[in-house]
C-alpha cells in the first residue's frame, strides 16, 4: 500500500531540516548568503522565500530525472536546473520588487552556488522519490529561513533601530543616550551573531563536534 502523503516518516523529513539537522547550524551549509542579506528583515524574508522555493522545486525536478542523469555529468545537470529556477526568481523580483532586487544585488544569483541546494540534491534527491524530496527541500529551506529571520530581526532592531523599515525603538531612548550598535550592520557583527546562535542551538540540542 502506498504511504500516506503526510505520514509520520514524511513529517520527520520536514522536522529534521528545521531543528535536528538544521542546514545552517548543523550541516554548515549556505552560510554565505545568510550573513550577507540579513542587515534588514525585509531582504531576509525575500531571500528565505527564494531559497525555500528553489530548494524544494529543484529537489522535485532532479528527483524526477534521477534515473536518467549519467553520474559523471550530474553536477552540470544539477546546476542547470537550479540556475533555470533562480533566473525565474530573479526576473520576478526585477519585475515586481525592483528596489529589493537592487538591495539583494548579486546574492539572488548566488542561490545557484548555495551549498544547501546542491547539498540536498546530492544527498537526498538523487536517491529518493519526488514527494519525499519535496518535503526534504521544504524542511531544509524552512530551517534556513528560520535562522535568517532571527538574524534579520536582531540585526535590524539593534543595528538600525527599525523593523521592516518602521522605527521601533522610541525617541525617548535616543534622548536618554541610547545609540544604535553600528557594528551589527557591518560584517563582523554578522559573524559574531551567527556564532552565538550556533552556540545556543547546539547547547540546547546537545550536539558537539568531536575534536
Amino acid at each position: 500500500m502506498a504511504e500516506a502523503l503526510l505520514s509520520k516518516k514524511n513529517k520527520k523529513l520536514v522536522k529534521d531540516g528545521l531543528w535536528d539537522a538544521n542546514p545552517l547550524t548543523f550541516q554548515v551549509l549556505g552560510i554565505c548568503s545568510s550573513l550577507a542579506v540579513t542587515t534588514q528583515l525585509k531582504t531576509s524574508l525575500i531571500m528565505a522565500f527564494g531559497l525555500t522555493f528553489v530548494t524544494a522545486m529543484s529537489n522535485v525536478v532532479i528527483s524526477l530525472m534521477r534515473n536518467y542523469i549519467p553520474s559523471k555529468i550530474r553536477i552540470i545537470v544539477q546546476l542547470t536546473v537550479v540556475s533555470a529556477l533562480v533566473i525565474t526568481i530573479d526576473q520576478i523580483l526585477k519585475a515586481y520588487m525592483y528596489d529589493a532586487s537592487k538591495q539583494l544585488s548579486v546574492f539572488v544569483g548566488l542561490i545557484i552556488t548555495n551549498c544547501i541546494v546542491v547539498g540536498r540534491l546530492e544527498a537526498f534527491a538523487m536517491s529518493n522519490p519526488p514527494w519525499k524530496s519535496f518535503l526534504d527541500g521544504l524542511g531544509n529551506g524552512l530551517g534556513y529561513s528560520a535562522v535568517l529571520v532571527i538574524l534579520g530581526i536582531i540585526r535590524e532592531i539593534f543595528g538600525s533601530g527599525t523593523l521592516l523599515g518602521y522605527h521601533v525603538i522610541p525617541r525617548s531612548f535616543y534622548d536618554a543616550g541610547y545609540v544604535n550598535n553600528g557594528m551589527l550592520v557591518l560584517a563582523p557583527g554578522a559573524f559574531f551573531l551567527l556564532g552565538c546562535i550556533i552556540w545556543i542551538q547546539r547547547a540546547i540540542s546537545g550536539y558537539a563536534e568531536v575534536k
Partner: protein
Amino acid sequence: MIHYVNLAIKSIFVENILLAFFLGMCSFLACSKKVETAVGLGFAVVFVLTITTPICWAVKNFLLKKGALAWTGLSDIDLSFLIFISFIAVIAAMTQIVEMLVEKLSPALYNALGIFLPLIAVNCAILGAALFMDQRNYNFPESIVFGFGSGVGWALAIISMSAIRKKLDYSNIPAPLRGLGITMLLTGLMSVGFMCFAGIRL
C-alpha cells in the same frame, strides 16, 4: 597603472571577498582545518578566479549584453537574463579544463590541488566575483585585476584561519562552541582586523 594597483588593494584588503561579502564561506569553514589543504585550496582559487573572471567578461560583452550580438547581424537582442546560467556553465567548464590541463602539464601541482579543483565549481566566491564584475561594469583589464585580487584576498583569509585553528587545538573550548561556533567568532575578529584597511589607497 595606479588605478589598477588601487583596485587590487581594494579587492584584497578593503573589500575582501570573504570577510566583507561573505562569499566562499562554506569551503572556508570546511577546508581550514589543516594548513596544507588551506594553502592548496587558496592557490587553486586564485588560479581559477584569475581565469574565469575575464572569460565571463568576454561572454557578457560579446554574447549576452544588449546589442552585443551586433557582429552576427542581430543587433537588438538582449540576452542578459541568461547571465546566471552562462556564467555558471563557464565556471564549471573552466574548472574542468583547468583540471585536465594541470594534470597534463604539471603532475606535481595536480597532486597538490587535485581534489580541490572540482570543488571550486560550486564555490560561491567564483560566481560572486563574476557577478560583481558584471554589476560594477568593469572593463577587461579591470576584470583580470579584480579576479586576481579577490582570489588573493580569499587565499589570505583561509591560510591565516587555518593557522589560527591549528593553535586552537590546544585550547579548552566549551563543547557546543567547538568547531563551527568558535570558527565563526574568530572570523568575526578577523573581519574587524581587516576593516582597519578601509580607506587605504595609493
